[in-house]
C-alpha cells in the first residue's frame, strides 16, 4: 500500500489548518457565502438537499483496513452511522455539519485521506481498475501510474481552473473494469512490439448531456512521457475548451468539434514544445512507488480449488457467491472477492459504520489488509486465499454483505437522485430498490445472467445510465418524475452508449418496462446468450414492440 511521504503529510496538515481558518471566518461572518462556497467546494463540502455533504476521495479505489475504519469512525461520530460509496470511487457522508468539517478532515489526514479535488474544475481523484495488483489479466499495476498522476495533478497551478472538471482513469488490464473510455482521459497500459511499457491514450469520453466514447488519440505513448503528454493535452484543453457555455465546456466537446485527428495533432505539437527531461517520469520514483504496491510473496496453492469444490458441494449459497462474486487472482490459490453493497431492497453503495468496521477486520484477516472500491458501488477484497473463501463468505453473510449478485440484474448502479441531490429531476434509489426486490430470487437472477442496470436522477449521468445494458434516466415533466429507458450501453472494453427506446414511463411503468425488457430477452435468447448478445443480434425493435405496441 502506498503511504504518504512528509511532503504529502505537510500538504494535508496545511490544508486542514487553512480550511479550519476559513470555516471560522465564515461562521464569524467575515466571509459571505459567495466568497466561501468555492473554498468549501475545494475541500469537498457541498450543500445538498438535507445538509452538507462531504465527498472524500478513495485514491484510485484503494483503501487500507485502517482507512476503512476511519470512514466508519467518521460515519459514527459526525454523520448518521453510514456512508455512500459513489460511482467515482469516492465516499460521501450525507449529514455533515459545517463546524465539524475541519475536524473530519484532520481525522482523515491521519490516515492519508482527504477531500482535495473532489469538486471544482480541476483534475479529480484518479480512478483505476479495482482489481489492480491482483488481476490475472493485468499487464502492469495501474495504481503505480495513478499515483504518479496524483502527485503531478495535486494542486497543479496551471490546471486548477480548467473550463470544467476533468476525470482520468487508468487500467492495466484488457478487460476494462474502470470504464476508461467514459473519462476525459482514459489510459490503458500496453506494451509495444519491442516490449516497452506505455499507454494507449483515449481522450474526450464522458456521459452527461452529450455522451461520447473516447476516441484513441495516441496508440502508444512511452510510459516515461505520460506526464509530458498529459500536460500537453490539458494545455490544449485549457486554451481551447469552451468557457462560455457550461454544457459545452468538457474536453469531449472540444475533441468532437476539432475531430480526434486534429485534436491529436494539436496535442502532439504542444507535446513537442515541452521539455522532455523536465517532465520525464523519474524511474527511481516509479520503482519506489512500485515497491510500495508490491504484493508480498504469496505461496501458490494449486490444491485449494479442490477443497473449495468440496465446500461448495455442501452449500449452494456458497457456490452461487463464488460463481458471481469471485475472480481469478494472479497467484494460483488466491481469489479476488467482491463484497456486494447491493443487498435486495438496499440502497446501492451504502454501508453502515459497523459494516465498514467488519469489512476492515475481514480485510486484515483474509486480504492482506487491503480493500478496493469499485465504480459500480461495491467493495472488493483483492487477495483472499481460495481456502478462506467459505469463511469469508460466512462472515460477510453475518453482516448482510454476502449477496451473490455481482454483475447480475440486482447489482444496480444508482446515483443519490432526488432523495439527496439538489440537481436531480427524479429519484433513483427507490427504483433500484423496487427492481432489486422484483428480481430478488437468486435462481432467477442467475438464469438471467450478466445484466447491468444503471439509474441516474438527471442528465448529469452520475449513475452511468448511458453505459448500462438497461439505462434509466429520471426527467422532470411538469413537476412529475418520468423515466426514460435506454438499451445497449456498455461500460467495458467495448464501451457503447445506450439508445433511448421510446417515450418515458412513470415510476410504476418503468418497473414494468424493465420486467418486459428482461422477459423479451428471455424469450428470444439462444442457449448461453447474454442480454447484450441477444440485443446485438436482434436489435432494439423486439423490445420496442413489446413495450410500446400495446400501450
Amino acid at each position: 500500500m502506498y503511504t504518504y511521504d512528509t511532503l504529502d503529510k505537510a500538504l494535508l496538515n496545511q490544508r486542514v489548518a487553512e480550511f479550519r481558518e476559513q470555516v471560522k471566518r465564515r461562521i464569524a461572518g467575515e466571509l459571505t457565502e459567495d466568497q466561501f462556497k468555492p473554498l468549501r467546494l475545494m475541500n469537498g463540502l457541498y450543500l445538498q438537499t438535507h445538509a452538507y455533504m462531504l465527498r472524500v476521495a478513495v485514491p484510485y479505489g484503494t483503501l487500507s483496513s485502517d482507512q476503512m475504519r476511519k470512514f466508519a469512525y467518521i460515519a459514527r461520530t459526525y454523520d448518521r452511522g453510514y456512508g455512500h460509496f459513489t460511482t467515482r470511487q469516492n465516499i460521501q457522508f450525507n449529514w455533515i455539519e459545517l463546524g465539524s468539517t475541519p475536524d473530519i478532515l484532520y481525522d482523515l489526514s491521519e490516515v492519508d485521506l482527504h477531500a482535495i479535488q473532489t469538486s471544482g474544475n480541476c483534475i479529480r481523484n484518479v480512478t483505476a481498475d479495482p482489481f489492480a495488483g491482483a488481476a490475472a489479466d493485468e499487464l502492469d499495476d495501474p495504481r503505480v501510474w495513478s499515483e504518479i498522476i496524483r502527485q503531478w495533478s495535486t494542486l497543479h497551478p496551471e490546471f486548477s481552473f480548467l473550463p470544467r472538471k476533468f476525470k482520468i482513469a487508468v487500467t492495466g488490464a484488457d478487460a476494462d473494469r474502470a470504464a476508461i473510455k467514459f473519462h476525459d482521459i482514459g489510459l490503458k497500459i500496453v506494451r509495444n512490439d519491442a516490449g516497452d511499457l506505455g499507454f494507449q491514450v483515449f481522450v474526450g469520453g464522458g456521459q452527461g448531456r452529450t455522451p461520447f466514447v473516447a476516441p484513441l488519440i495516441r496508440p502508444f505513448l512511452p510510459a516515461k512521457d505520460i506526464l509530458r503528454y498529459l500536460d500537453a493535452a490539458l494545455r490544449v484543453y485549457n486554451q481551447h475548451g469552451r468557457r462560455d457555455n457550461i454544457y459545452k465546456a468538457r474536453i469531449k466537446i472540444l475533441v468532437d468539434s476539432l475531430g480526434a485527428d486534429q485534436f491529436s495533432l494539436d496535442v502532439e505539437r504542444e507535446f513537442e514544445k515541452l521539455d522532455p527531461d523536465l517532465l520525464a517520469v523519474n524511474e527511481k520514483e516509479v520503482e519506489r512507488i512500485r515497491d510500495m504496491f508490491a504484493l508480498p510473496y504469496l505461496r501458490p496453492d494449486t490444491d485449494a480449488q479442490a477443497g473449495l469444490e468440496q465446500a461448495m458441494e455442501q452449500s449452494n449459497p456458497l457456490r452461487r457467491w463464488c460463481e458471481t462474486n469471485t475472480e481469478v487472482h494472479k497467484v494460483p490459490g488466491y481469489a479476488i472477492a467482491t463484497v456486494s453493497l447491493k443487498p435486495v431492497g438496499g440502497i446501492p453503495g451504502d454501508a453502515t459504520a459497523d459494516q465498514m468496521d467488519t469489512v476492515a477486520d475481514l480485510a486484515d484477516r483474509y486480504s492482506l489488509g487491503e480493500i478496493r472500491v469499485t465504480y459500480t458501488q461495491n467493495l472488493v477484497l483483492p487477495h483472499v486465499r481460495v481456502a478462506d473463501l467459505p469463511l469469508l463468505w460466512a462472515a460477510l453473510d453475518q453482516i448482510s454483505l454476502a449477496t451473490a449478485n455481482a454483475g447480475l440484474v440486482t447489482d444496480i448502479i444508482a446515483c443519490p437522485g432526488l432523495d439527496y441531490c439538489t440537481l436531480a429531476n427524479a429519484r433513483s434509489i427507490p427504483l433500484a430498490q423496487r427492481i432489486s426486490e422484483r428480481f430478488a430470487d437468486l435462481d432467477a437472477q442467475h438464469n438471467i445472467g450478466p445484466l447491468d442496470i444503471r439509474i441516474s436522477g438527471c442528465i448529469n449521468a452520475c449513475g452511468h445510465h448511458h453505459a448500462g445494458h438497461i439505462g434509466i434516466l429520471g426527467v422532470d415533466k411538469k413537476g412529475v418524475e418520468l423515466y426514460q429507458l435506454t438499451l445497449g450501453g456498455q461500460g467495458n472494453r467495448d464501451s457503447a452508449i445506450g439508445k433511448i427506446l421510446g417515450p418515458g414511463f412513470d415510476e410504476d411503468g418503468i418497473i414494468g418496462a424493465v420486467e418486459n425488457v428482461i422477459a423479451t430477452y428471455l424469450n428470444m435468447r439462444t442457449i448461453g446468450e447474454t442480454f447484450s448478445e441477444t440485443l446485438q443480434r436482434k436489435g432494439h425493435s423486439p423490445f420496442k414492440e413489446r413495450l410500446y405496441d400495446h400501450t
Partner: protein
Amino acid sequence: MSYVISANRLLSGSIVFLAADERWSEQFEDAHIFSSDELEDAHQIGQRAEKCNFVIGSYAVELKAGTPAVPKRLKDSIRRTGPTVGDHNPRTLGGPES
C-alpha cells in the same frame, strides 16, 4: 398561489422554514404562508437572514392549492419529510441515529 420560504441553516445545514416574526423553524408546520403579492417581501427577509449568516440558499417553495399546506414539487416534499429511502428524519440532524 401561495408559498413558504425555505433555506438551510448555515451551521448545521439543516432545512428550515421562515416562520412568523422572521424566525426560522425546522417544522414545516410553523412556516408562514405568503401570497404571490407578499413574495417579494418574503424574499427580502430571506436575504436579510442570509446576510446575517443564519441561513443559506433561501428560496420560495410553491404550495399546492388547498389545505393543509403542502409543497407542490416532490423535491420540496422530500426536503420537508426527509429522504424517501432509508430511515431518516430530517429533524434528527446532529448525531447518529438511535
